[in-house]
C-alpha cells in the first residue's frame, strides 16, 4: 500500500462502512449475512488494535515499574560510589565507567572490521559461491544466542590468548557478537548508493579504492553510523556473555587499562536483582534507569548524526 493510498484509509474506522466497496450481499438483499460480515470485520479490527496495544501497555508497565522503584535511589552519590554491602552507600561508579570503556573499545574493534567486511562483500567480492557462503554465514551468526559467544570468548580470549577477565576480553567478545549486525547494516547502506556515482568516478579514471573511499563511503556513512550505534547499544545492554567471560560484579576501582578487570551496568543490575533485600531492588531499578538513559541517548545520537550527514550531501 503506498503512502497516498494509506492516507485515504484513515485511522481506526469503527462504525464506518467497510472500504472501499459495500459487501456483495447487500445488493442481493441478504441483509443478515451482510451484517454478520460487517460485524466480523469490526470485531477483527478491534482485536488487531487490542493486540497492538499489548506491546504499548507492556512498555508502559515496564517503564513505570522501574521508575517507581528506582527514582528514590537515584542521586549523585549513587553515580559516584562503588558497590557496597550496605545499600545506602552503594553506587554504580565502577559499572558506569566499565560500560563506557567497554563501549568505546568495542566500537574501536567492531566498526572498522564490520565496515571492511561490508565493503568487501558489496564493492569487491565476485558473485561466486565463496561470497554466498560468507553471506549465509553472517546471517546465521546473527541468530546465534549471545551466551554462545560468551562460551567462545571464555575459551579463546580469556583462556587460550591469556587476556584473563579483562576489558579486552569483554570488548573482543562483544565485538564478535555485534559484527553480523554492523556488517548487514553497512551492506544495506552501501547498496543504497546509486551505481551512477561509482560509474562516474571510474569514468574519470579513479581506482577502485579511490571510488570507495572518496565517493561511496561518505555517501553510505550515515546509514553505517546509524547501524553501528544501534548495534553498540545492544552491546551495552548485554549481560550473559560477560558473565561467561567472568566479569565481576563487585569492584572498588575504575579501569585504567584495557587489561584491567571490569564490571558493567547490566551485570551490576543483575547482581542487585538476585539479592533478596528490597533495598537492593531499588538500587537495581536506579541502575536500570541510568542504563536506559544511556541507551536512549545513543539512539538520539544515531538520529542526529544521520540527519546532519543528510543535510550535507
Amino acid at each position, binding site marked *: *500500500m503506498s*503512502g497516498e493510498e*494509506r*492516507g485515504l*484509509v484513515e485511522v*481506526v474506522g469503527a462504525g464506518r462502512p*467497510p472500504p472501499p*466497496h459495500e459487501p*456483495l450481499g447487500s445488493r442481493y438483499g441478504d441483509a443478515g449475512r451482510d451484517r454478520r460480515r*460487517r460485524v466480523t*470485520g469490526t470485531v*477483527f479490527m478491534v*482485536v*488487531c488494535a487490542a*493486540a*497492538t496495544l*499489548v*506491546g*504499548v501497555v507492556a512498555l508502559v508497565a*515496564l517503564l513505570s*515499574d*522501574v521508575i517507581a*522503584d528506582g527514582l528514590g535511589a537515584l542521586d549523585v552519590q549513587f553515580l559516584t560510589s562503588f558497590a557496597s554491602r550496605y545499600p545506602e552507600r552503594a553506587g554504580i561508579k565502577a559499572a558506569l565507567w566499565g560500560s563506557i570503556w567497554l563501549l568505546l573499545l568495542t566500537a574501536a574493534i567492531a566498526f572498522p*572490521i564490520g565496515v*571492511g*567486511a561490508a*565493503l*568487501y562483500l558489496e564493492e569487491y*567480492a565476485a558473485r561466486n559461491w565463496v561470497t554466498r*557462503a*560468507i553471506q*549465509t*554465514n*553472517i546471517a*546465521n*551468526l546473527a*541468530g*546465534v*544466542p*549471545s*551466551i*554462545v559467544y560468551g*562460551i*567462545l570468548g571464555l575459551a579463546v580470549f580469556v583462556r587460550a590468548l591469556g587476556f584473563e577477565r579483562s576489558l579486552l576480553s569483554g570488548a573482543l567478545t562483544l565485538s564478535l557478537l555485534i*559484527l553480523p549486525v554492523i*556488517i548487514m547494516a553497512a551492506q544495506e547502506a552501501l547498496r543504497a548508493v546509486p551505481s551512477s556515482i561509482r560509474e562516474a568516478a571510474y569514468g574519470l579514471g579513479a*581506482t*577502485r*579504492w579511490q571510488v570507495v573511499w572518496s565517493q561511496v563511503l561518505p555517501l553510505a556513512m550515515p546509514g553505517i553510523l546509524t547501524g553501528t550505534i544501534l548495534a553498540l547499544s545492544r552491546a*551495552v*545492554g*548485554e*549481560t*550473559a556473555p560477560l558473565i*561467561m567471560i567472568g566479569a565481576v560484579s563487585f569492584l572498588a576501582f575504575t579501569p585504567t587499562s584495557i587489561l584491567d578487570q571490569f564490571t558493567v551496568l547490566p551485570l551490576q543490575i*543483575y547482581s542487585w*536483582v*538476585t539479592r533478596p533485600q528490597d533495598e537492593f531492588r531499588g538500587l537495581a*531499578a536506579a541502575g536500570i534507569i541510568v542504563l536506559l538513559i544511556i*541507551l536512549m541517548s545513543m539512539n538520539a545520537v544515531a538520529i542526529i548524526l544521520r540527519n546532519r550527514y543528510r543535510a550535507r550531501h
Partner: protein
Amino acid sequence: MKERVIGWLLFLCAALSTMVTVGIVLVLLRETVAFFGEVSLAEFLTDPRWTPNFAADQQHFGISPLLAGSLLVALGAAAIALPVGLLTAIFLSEYAADRLRQVLKPILEILAGIPTVVYGYFALTFVTPFLRSVIPITQVYNAASAAIVVGVMIIPTVASLSEDALSAVPQMLREGAYGLGATRFEVSTRVVVPAALSGILASFILAISRAIGETMAVTIAAGGLANLTANPFEPVLTMTAFIVQVSLGDTPPGTMVYRSLFAVGMSLFLITLVMNVVSQWVLSRYREAYE
C-alpha cells in the same frame, strides 16, 4: 600494489566471520567430545535427571529437564508473541494510517531495544507478584513469569518481520479482492496473510529460536532447579540458565560440570542454528515472486 593490499585486508575482515563460526564449533566440540567420552549419547538424551553438581556416583546427565525447561518457556512465549505479533503486523500493515504507524513502530523498536536483564527485573518484581496474587500456587521462581516477559520481548521480532512480509504483498491483489466485494477483514485474512505466509512463518521460527536462546530474563525469573515438568507455575532450569549458573560458580576446567556446560552449549547452538536455517529456507523456498 596498494589496491591489492586493501582488497586483501577487506577480504580478511569478511573472512573473519567464517573464522568465528569455525571457532564456535571447535570450542564447543572439543569439550563436548570429552563430555561424551564419559556420558553416552543415549544417557544424555534419555535420562530424565540432570544433577551435575551431585557427588560423582549420583551425577546424572540427561538433558531432558533442561530441554523441557527451555521449551516450556519458549512455547509459552510463543503462545503470547505469535498471535499478538501477527495481529499487530496486520493492524500496522492493513488498518493503521501512516501517522499512527509512525508512532507505533518506534514504540515496538524501543521494546526490542530494552536489555534482557531489565526484562528479568520486570518479571521478578512485577509479573511474578501479579501471577502469585491471581494464581496462588505460583512459586517465587516460575516458568510462566519468564515465558510472559520473553513473549513480550519477541513480539517486535514477529511484528516487524511479519509486517515486512505483509507490506510486500502487491496492492493489486488487495484491489482484486475488493473488486469482488470482499470486506477488509476478508481481504486481510484470505488474501494478504496467505500471500505473505512464508515471511510470517519465517518470523515465527526466528522468534521461537530467539526465545530458546534468551538467557538473562529466564535466569532471573525461572529459577535454578532442573525440574522435568510441564507445570508453568513451578521453577525450571533452561539450557541457557544452566550455562550461566555454572559460569557464576568457580568451576575448574576438566571437571564433568565444566564439560557439561559445553555439551549444553553445543545443544543450544545446534537447535537455534537449525531453526534459523529452516527460517531462511522457508523464506526463500516459498517466497512468491511478484514482479
